[in-house]
């Protein structure tokens, strides 16, 4: 077989491994910088998913360079990305492989965080607040970051498996975290994306090192940030929790009875609450109060 001549990087995130490649060296350089703490190999050299950022046409390799993705599980038609956002493109590709191809656990679009050997699952729509709360917890004493984008539910036990990729901060939450995390844990500022400005925040090295250690699910929270809101919370019924979990899972409906039982186990094992707050400090205080209540 002809060897691959493109710059590339293998990396492991939680249970999954990816092989990223692109003829644009700067894209792989940026990946290497951001993912420097992540394992660069698999035990036997076999990786799960390949994601390539390729020129959108031969001309675009050199003139006004832009790229599109080629991956094991293909994206639908998308417009090309400029090479400056190539690393984001590769991240999108990895997300897509997890959302479409992964079957080892039930995949939920959710954030999660562990304290000791127990974990909280943060669910909700994009932009409601779960990413920011999970970033706050990532750098909070006593908490281990498990993931901001995907939470992985075990198929046999009420466990969450970490997927601690670089946290994707957007717009206002960037400044909020710049005040709370060391400067050297941040990636470059990426402007002009469809979601606005994005900046990655690496979880603490300890969280990355512990990427293979699951935690027992003890609490489900649906966080909502609203400017100036007074802190408030209410219990969620199991029905409501089920509907939210099912709606935010990319693969539960495809995994038959095993998928059903995994979500059921989560419902049966962990109480659920909807919380609202108007500031980061209120969010943390409310969240930790609930945590102490349920884990007492």
């Amino acid at each position, binding site marked *: 077989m002809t060897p691959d001549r493109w710059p590339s990087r293998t990396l492991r995130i939680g249970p999954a491994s990816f092989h990223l490649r692109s003829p644009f060296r700067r894209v792989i350089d940026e990946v290497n910088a951001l993912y420097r703490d992540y394992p660069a190999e698999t035990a036997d050299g076999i990786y799960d998913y*390949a994601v390539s950022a390729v020129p959108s046409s031969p001309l675009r390799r050199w003139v006004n360079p832009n790229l599109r993705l080629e991956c094991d599980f293909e994206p639908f*038609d998308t417009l090309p990305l400029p090479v400056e956002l190539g690393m984001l493109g590769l991240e999108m590709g990895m997300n897509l492989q997890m959302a479409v191809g992964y079957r080892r656990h039930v995949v939920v679009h959710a954030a999660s965080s562990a304290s000791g050997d127990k974990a909280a699952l943060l669910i909700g729509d994009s932009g409601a607040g779960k990413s920011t709360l999970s970033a706050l917890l990532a750098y909070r004493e006593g908490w281990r970051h498990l993931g901001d984008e995907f939470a992985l539910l075990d198929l046999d036990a009420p466990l969450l498996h970490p997927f601690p990729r670089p946290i994707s901060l957007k717009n206002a939450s960037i400044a909020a975290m710049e005040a709370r995390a060391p400067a050297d844990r941040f990636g470059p500022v990426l402007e002009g994306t469809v979601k606005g400005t994005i900046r990655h925040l690496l979880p603490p090295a300890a969280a990355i090192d512990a990427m293979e250690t699951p935690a027992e699910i003890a609490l489900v929270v649906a966080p909502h940030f609203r400017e100036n809101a007074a802190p408030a919370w209410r219990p969620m019924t199991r029905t409501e929790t089920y509907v939210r979990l099912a709606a935010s899972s990319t693969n539960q409906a495809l995994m038959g009875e095993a998928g059903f039982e995994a979500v059921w186990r989560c419902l049966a094992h962990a109480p659920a609450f909807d919380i609202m707050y108007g500031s980061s400090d209120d969010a943390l205080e409310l969240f930790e109060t609930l945590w102490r209540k349920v884990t007492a």
Partner: protein
Amino acid sequence: MTPAAILHRALAEPESMRGLSADDWNALIRVGRAERLLGTVAERAVPLWDALPAGAQTCLTEERDITRGDHLAARWEIDRAALALRNVGCPVILMKGSAYLHAGLPAAQGRRIGDLDILVPRAALPAVEAALLAHGWLQAKENAYDDHYYRTWMHELPPMVHKERGGVIDVHHTILPLTARLKPDADALIESRVAVADGLFVLGPAEMLLHSAAHVAYDGEFEGGTRNLWDIHCLASDFAQTPGFWDRLTEATDRHQLRVPLSRALRLARRLYGTDVPETLAGRMDLVDRLALRKLHGRDRFGHQGAKLSDRLLYMRGHWLRMPPLMLTEHLARKAFRRKERAQPV
């Protein structure tokens, strides 16, 4: 060995997987996924499972889970279609993957299944369509041109999609487009049917093989050819165990005027997978075979098919075979225009 050849050999000689390096496995996984055959590789690997590296076991197990999901969904779609069409009064003949699955054929093992394909008599089409509409299926095609094109020239109705489940059903009334130069005998196809469970049917063995062969060669682009040829390998190997099968097949081939595509499909299956084929049916390798083989070996170690001149020639040939020149130009122009419109911002 080309990446594609690693796949062909893994399927035809599973024991060969013992000797694969990590590099080979990475290529096999990519090409396998691209050709929708990794699930089949996983099934073929079961007897030597313990000898496989952990990384391979992980990917293959995942693929088996994906396939299991396909089969569950496919069985349910068959169940629902049977219920909807129970009172229409015509035979409902399953085709392709759903047929292999429902009939319990070896070809179904590890096979990814998407749409449900059925064959019904042309006269029954309005009743079949009405019954499906009454049970929650909708027309899927986007515009009047496609709809008209389908109904006038194709061998099937426009695809119908179920409004709750999203499952797609393709209702055929013969096995090749009406615009194709070869004209199989639809009545004889329907007559060949064999009863299976739940009041449904599948094509007779010879006809089932002919259907698969007609599409390998006739879709001209040999798109999905690697998998299509594996189907043919499985079907031929299985059916050949019945005495008289090859004679029956020859008879049916001539009735349906499918000698050229059948021979080509058998030659290519033999080339890729070592299928045992009688010389009388195989014929001789020709230029189209060579172009097809180039395409079938065309994927790189990441599963990507580069666009080569030989592929373009095949593409042109495919359309030529399916429709007259004037229609072809107009059709391609519309398709090109629509592709650009569909792209979305990231």
